[in-house]
């Protein structure tokens, strides 16, 4: 071969590479080929590049590692696992649903119906009958809520494919909130604040009224509902709707045609109430002059009835004092029941407590008190405890099944996030304790009440979801990794059962219970955070797309240099 003439330039490395990779067009390839006939250096470079290509291919193709056992068994195991996992999943889910309905929901609905709340409106009661947001009242029936959730789920499925990274969820959530906002009361709503907001005796409020202040007074007429927050709340006038309040004292000296739904320290009813009382707080007294058309459901310390109650009493707390008349039955779970001489109860009395009821001989009772001693045995020694554990495990599986079906990708992401053990646990502790505090702070302001309560609700649900996520992780440890939806659900079912088993270990079970919930909560938080992270931008500068070379040309295509 001849030596390179002084004027002859060497080929650059890129051209040599494209030549050996057959990426040059025919004319350029001929040119390069001609050059290499005469230039030793370029020919040597091309040979070196070719050898480098062969070395790379050989190094990559060499099988220095056998196929891992996990992969070798993957297909078979995934298929086999489905046979029995699905039996477990559906069995537990069906058991859970049936047990929850027959043991909890049905008896409660009956009790609540007896107490005057109407069994078909359980969700309405749970939603506090519009305490925080009036629009619930038009949406509370079970079918409506179910239909709404179905729509939201469908919306999420549709939008999930179109919009990426959780923004779909935000859109759907925003739509959901808008939907909730639509049926808000169209009637006139008035708001009053200050130190002593008052509806004066000559006044008539046509719609609802929101009142907040140190001393809230209604002396006139309100044709809608009264929403009140304050230290002392006095209703001396006439409220044709409900009284929904939060405050230290609630005194009803006037007339309320609807219900009282309240949380506070003390309620004293010396006027007339058309319907029911639902009270979360310390004490309720129906005074001797007080008349309540419906019943009382109370979670608190003391209930005293000296006046007249039209229907039933359902009480969870410390003490009930009966000196007036009760038109329905009395059902109490607490410490003491005292029935005085002036008492008249037209229905049965069921009392579960530590001591038998104290009953005056002069009391007029339709039937003797049915007393059941509260048993304080260790739960581990009772068979019912274990049955309940099975029911709880089934309920968790059912809950997980629903969430993993509705949010498959998010659930999968959350399980992956849970594998970052330290980060998930740390974030879990932070969110687990920090979020409720933040939500409570939000609740203090009237504007943030809905947001605060929604956050608390989500936080509480996320604790259970977290346990399900950790269940899925445990299942993954035992049965191998999968990101496919249904096998993941199967793993979740197995893992949840194991986590539940760990939680019933005496003395240390609570560590597993709360640990799993917080760890899972952290994983969910990390997954949420990642969803809202911006995607990495494409790293190359944009340029017009070049059409690919025709596959038939062996050395075709434009030279990219």
């Amino acid at each position, binding site marked *: 071969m001849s030596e390179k003439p002084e004027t002859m330039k060497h080929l650059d490395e890129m051209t040599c590479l494209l030549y050996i990779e057959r990426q040059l067009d025919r004319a350029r390839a001929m040119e390069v080929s001609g050059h290499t006939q005469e230039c030793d250096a370029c020919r*040597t470079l091309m040979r070196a590049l070719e050898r480098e290509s062969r070395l790379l291919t050989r190094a990559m193709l*060499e099988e220095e590692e056998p196929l891992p056992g996990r*992969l070798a068994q993957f297909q078979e195991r995934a*298929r086999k696992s489905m046979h029995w996992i699905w039996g477990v999943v559906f069995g537990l889910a069906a058991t859970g649903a049936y047990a929850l309905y027959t043991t909890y929901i049905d008896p409660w609905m009956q009790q609540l119906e007896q107490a005057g709340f109407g069994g078909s409106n359980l969700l309405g009661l749970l939603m506090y009958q519009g305490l925080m947001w009036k629009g619930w009242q038009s949406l509370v029936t079970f079918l409506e809520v179910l239909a709404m959730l179905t729509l939201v789920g469908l919306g999420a499925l549709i939008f999930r494919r179109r919009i990426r990274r959780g923004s779909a969820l935000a859109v759907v959530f925003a739509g959901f909130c808008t939907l909730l906002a639509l049926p808000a009361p169209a009637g006139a709503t008035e708001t009053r604040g200050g130190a002593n907001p008052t509806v004066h005796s000559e006044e008539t409020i046509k719609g609802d009224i929101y009142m907040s202040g140190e001393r809230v007074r209604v002396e006139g007429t309100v044709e809608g509902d009264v929403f009140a927050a304050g230290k002392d709340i006095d209703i001396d006038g006439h409220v044709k709707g409900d009284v929904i309040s939060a405050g230290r004292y609630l005194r009803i000296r006037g007339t309320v045609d609807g219900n009282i739904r309240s949380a506070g320290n003390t309620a004293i009813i010396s006027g007339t109430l058309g319907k029911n009382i639902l009270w979360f707080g310390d004490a309720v007294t129906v005074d001797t002059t007080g008349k309540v058309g419906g019943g009382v459901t109370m979670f608190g310390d003391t209930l005293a009835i000296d006046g007249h109650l039209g229907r039933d009493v359902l009480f969870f707390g410390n003490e009930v004092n009966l000196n007036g008349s009760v038109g329905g039955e009395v059902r109490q779970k607490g410490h003491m029941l005292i029935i005085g001489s002036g008492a008249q109860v037209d229905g049965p009395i069921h009392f579960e407590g530590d001591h038998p009821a104290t009953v005056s001989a002069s009391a007029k009772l339709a039937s003797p008190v049915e007393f059941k001693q509260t048993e304080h045995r260790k739960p581990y020694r009772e068979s019912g405890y274990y049955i309940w554990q099975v029911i709880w495990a089934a309920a968790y599986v059912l809950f997980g099944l629903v969430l993993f079906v509705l949010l498959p990708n998010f659930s999968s992401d959350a399980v992956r996030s849970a594998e970052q053990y330290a980060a998930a646990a740390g974030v879990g502790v932070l969110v687990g304790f920090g979020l409720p505090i933040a939500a409570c702070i939000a609740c203090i302001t009237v504007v943030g009440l809905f947001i605060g309560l929604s956050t608390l609700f989500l936080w509480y649900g996320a604790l259970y979801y977290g346990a399900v996520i950790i269940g899925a992780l445990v299942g993954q440890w035992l049965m191998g990794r*999968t990101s496919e939806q249904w096998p993941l659900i199967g793993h979740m079912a197995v893992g949840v059962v194991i986590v539940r088993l760990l939680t019933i270990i005496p003395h240390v079970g609570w560590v597993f219970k709360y640990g799993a919930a917080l760890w899972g909560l952290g994983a969910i938080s990390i997954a949420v955070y990642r969803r809202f992270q911006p995607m990495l931008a494409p*790293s190359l500068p944009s340029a017009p797309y070049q059409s690919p070379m025709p596959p038939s040309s062996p050395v075709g295509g434009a030279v990219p240099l």
Partner: protein
Amino acid sequence: MNAPGTTEPTEAITRARAGDAEAWGELYREYAPPIFRFCRRALPTREDAEDATMEIFMKLKGKLGQYDMTRSFTAWLYKVAANHCWDTLRRRKIRQDKETEDLENVPLEHPDPNQLDRLIEERTSEEVRKALNKLGARARMALVMRYYSDMSYDEIADALGVRRAFVGVVLLRARHELRQALENTALAAGGAS
């Protein structure tokens, strides 16, 4: 493009598309080893490669209906695998933006052919594999796609999301990185001895 040591199992593919579990098993047994090796070369750890292999085959179940039977199944499968691995790397932010800044500045001078020849001559496959692990994600991915699964420049461009004209640049830069890693290894070995 041909899979390393495989022929096209057309019948098994047809049956698998119809939902035959046995056919799935056949495809898995035949293609899991090369796909695992592909992932092993492209991803940083063995665990990542195992996970990715399983995920690719799970993804395949849903995608098999999209496969055009007139084209190479192996090539298509590698394309799915490459996209999955690159997505995985990109999600982890392993991809370095710095790489793109330097793309336009790849040296085009004539390297010393004899020195390059010697470097290649003295290196074993194992050393090359170790050096590959030290490369940036994009460089390694490009080399694996080109020299393991024999993907075309168009396919590499699609998978990496770059213009076709840049594929040669990416590959050349990857080779430079590899040579540097091999030299560093040799220097370290020399220093140690």
